[in-house]
């Protein structure tokens, strides 16, 4: 495949931007977590594009992408447990409900 690496980085940047957008504008905590997953995926794509551009026998890129996937799984598990705790407390998953810290 002769797609230039820049185009993969453009795709990763666009995915990351969409993830940031969802993280900022959505109020549903579950969708916010999914936006974080999108951003981590964009990071993965960047790592693999870097490994492809670098070439050679070095597999650091895929190894780091694997670590990112593990971190994403951990983050999703903790985040969703927090969502469940939030739901128990407030009976909602909207982040607008968390106003205790408001001065």
């Amino acid at each position: 495949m002769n797609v230039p690496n820049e185009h993969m980085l453009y795709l990763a940047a666009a995915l990351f931007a969409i993830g940031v957008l969802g993280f900022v504008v959505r109020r549903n905590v579950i969708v916010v977590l999914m936006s974080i997953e999108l951003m981590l995926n964009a990071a993965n794509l960047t790592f693999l594009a870097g490994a492809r551009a670098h070439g050679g026998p070095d597999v650091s890129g895929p190894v780091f992408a694997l670590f990112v996937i593990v971190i994403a799984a951990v983050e999703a598990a903790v985040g969703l447990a927090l969502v469940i705790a939030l739901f128990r407390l407030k009976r909602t998953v909207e982040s607008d409900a968390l106003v205790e810290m408001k001065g």
Partner: protein
Amino acid sequence: MAEFLFYALALVALCGAAGVVLAKSPMFSVLSLLASFFALSVIYLLMSFPFMAAVQIVVYAGAILVLFLFVIMLLDLGHMGSKVEFSTAMFRSPAARIGAVVALALALAGLIAVQRGALQQAAGAAAETGPRDGLPQLAEALFGRYGLAFQATGMLLLVTMVAVVALAKRDRRKGPGSQGAQGGER
């Protein structure tokens, strides 16, 4: 031909990502994310990272998204912002339009790819260069050079498991404003 496949899949991945942000119901968000992950997986395959493509499907689509689905079902959020009964109004939302674009792009990409034998070409090209994430090299790096990080990841997973059980455990001392459910102390 593989290039065309890449750009079609990039479009699918972007539309799926947009669907995650735009969908009203979290259930549709999960399905859009699934489409995005599948497209990214095939992109990894085209970049000749077959192992990462498999991990993307197995771990992301198979484990993480199922976790999201579990929570959505557990908290009964799937019906939020969506009509259960079928009506043409369902097709007028922006999320539905993006979904239609995704479906159309997928169908077109599949049709053209099959017609021109792109998959065989792509597979041949991957076989020529060989996988960039060969399992022997990957295992050597993971257990040799990055062994410490690997073990730290194992510890992280253990700690996470304990933390998740403590967080999600139902608090016995019920009462409004009880902090026990968050701290996890008994």
